[in-house]
């Protein structure tokens, strides 16, 4: 049975159990909870050549005001029919490519406490590898208006369908939480308006988080196998293969113009300090793939904030970079017709542009302030400047290849709330 189908049935089972549990509207409030979160954000970017966005799933904004990037609404239902059984359902409405009800379901799982320290979850769960984990959609839980694109924007998968095991134990004056999982999910990469669907099948990983009153440490490893069902790249591969007699240097890259059946490994490490009105947080990650075109990506950020009563000013510095890919040159052959040489040169340039379209080389500096107006409402304002080096704007949207360094100034005004 496909895992998507299992997730679908988990939702049905959840709804069914809820409806038959004595009387749905007379449930013991200690067993059933409804919680929600939301954000209303207004964003202004200022560049007409390159579009700003929060993750690669979004369609970015150019020189315009928009409420699309930073607004969402989430609803979460938790139901614990017994001390050991837990059902959870989380729905998030937001702007995303190829939007659907299925993609709005971020959680639909059944949890079972095997022991008081060990929980087994089956169904759809959120991503677990990061310090922010999957609460990155919950604006109120964060200091900034949005997580840095350089770090969090490249991982746009909101959930996985499968199984996970969570273990907690006291350790060295704190608590160590370990989560291992095996699942599959889908990712849609919006490349200049074109939606590129990728399957992540399977995904497995482990993340360990240790925390005490002041410190949180997080270390993760994730392995993903990408499946690209689109056939577009095959024609490209055939073209490159056909050019081999006159351009043999391209041979090593032919199999790497697609992510299909490619493995990727993610290594992440994060530290956070949260005490005495200070919030200091940093994460580092390295993503490696088997493809030399979509090669090693290093990303990092640092967040520093200090609370003064209800006001918390903060700054964030973030960077993402991978290696340049130099497509082998085509050497003009004087014994070939001019038209053949011209076609081969055009193919070389096209291949270079294709490789450049996966290049990341950008950094952002952000300054902002959070004002806790009410116990469950926060108003935030954030200004940020992003520097994008030539061809380095894969995480953003660039309809035309950019040969020069570009900057984007972006301002966000946002209200985050819980309900």
């Amino acid at each position, binding site marked *: 049975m496909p895992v998507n189908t299992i997730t679908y049935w988990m939702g049905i089972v959840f709804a069914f159990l809820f409806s038959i549990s004595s009387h749905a509207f007379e449930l013991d*409030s*200690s067993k059933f*909870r409804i*919680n929600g*979160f939301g954000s209303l954000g207004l964003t202004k970017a200022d560049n007409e050549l390159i579009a700003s966005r929060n993750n690669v799933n979004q369609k970015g904004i150019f020189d315009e005001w928009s409420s699309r990037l930073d607004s969402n609404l*989430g609803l*979460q239902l*938790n139901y614990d029919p017994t*001390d050991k059984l837990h059902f*959870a359902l*989380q729905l998030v409405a937001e702007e995303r490519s190829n939007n659907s009800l299925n993609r709005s379901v971020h*959680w639909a*799982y059944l949890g079972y406490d095997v022991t*008081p*320290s060990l929980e087994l*979850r089956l169904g759809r*769960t*959120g991503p677990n590898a990061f310090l922010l*984990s*999957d*609460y990155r*959609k*919950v604006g*109120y*839980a*964060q200091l900034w208006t949005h997580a840095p694109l350089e770090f969090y924007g490249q991982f746009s998968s909101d959930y996985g369908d499968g199984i996970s095991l969570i273990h*907690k*134990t*006291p350790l060295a*004056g*704190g*608590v160590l*939480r370990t989560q291992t999982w095996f699942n599959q999910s889908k990712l849609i990469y919006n490349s200049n308006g074109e939606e590129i669907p990728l399957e992540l099948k399977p995904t497995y990983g482990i993340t360990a988080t240790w*925390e005490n*009153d002041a410190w949180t440490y997080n270390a993760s490893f994730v392995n993903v196998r990408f499946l690209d069902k689109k056939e577009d790249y095959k024609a490209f591969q055939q073209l490159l293969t056909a050019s081999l007699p006159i351009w043999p240097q391209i041979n090593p890259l032919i199999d790497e113009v697609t992510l299909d059946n490619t493995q990727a490994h993610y290594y992440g490490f994060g530290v956070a300090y949260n*005490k*005495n009105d200070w919030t200091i947080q940093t994460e580092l990650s390295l993503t490696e793939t088997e493809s030399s075109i979509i090669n090693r990506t290093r990303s990092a950020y640092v967040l520093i904030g200090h*609370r003064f009563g*209800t006001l918390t000013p903060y700054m964030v510095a973030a960077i993402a970079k991978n290696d340049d890919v130099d497509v082998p040159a085509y050497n003009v052959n004087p014994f070939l017709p001019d038209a053949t040489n011209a076609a081969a040169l055009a193919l070389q340039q096209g291949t270079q542009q294709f490789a450049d379209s996966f290049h990341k080389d950008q950094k952002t500096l952000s300054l902002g302030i959070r004002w*806790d107006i009410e*116990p*469950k409402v*926060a108003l935030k304002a954030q200004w940020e400047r992003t520097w994008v080096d030539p061809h380095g704007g894969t995480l953003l949207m660039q309809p035309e290849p950019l040969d020069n360094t570009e900057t984007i100034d972006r301002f966000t005004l946002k209200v985050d709330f*819980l309900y």
Partner: protein
Amino acid sequence: MKMLSTLLFIVMISVADSVDAELVVIGNNDLEIRGLTKKQIIDIYMGRYSVLPNGLKVIPLDQDIDSSARKHFYAKLVDKSISEINAYWARLLFSGRATPPRVVKTEKAVIEIVTKNASVIGYIDSSMVTDKVKVITRVE
């Protein structure tokens, strides 16, 4: 003189208001523990770890979001404001790591629930303690 008395009264009222009432963590009389350390109370109320060395999983109760008891409890326990606590719990709740303690509206209700459930603990003003429950620790 009358003005001085009035001023003194106002100062005393202000001081009395600023001196937090003593809060105690209570449990069921059948709870087989002699006491919990402050660190254990923090781990339980901050959703980190609620299993005691004897294997019992403890269920904490919270007070109303607007209550002064709740404000003082978290200020003394972890030196955080209610907004910070809400943001902290939003992180845990919406990442599936833990669900926040169940909220009970009154201290009498806290005592009533603790009386009926051997694994439940709560916090109340020390003046409200009865022989139906036992004091596990004082929140200082």
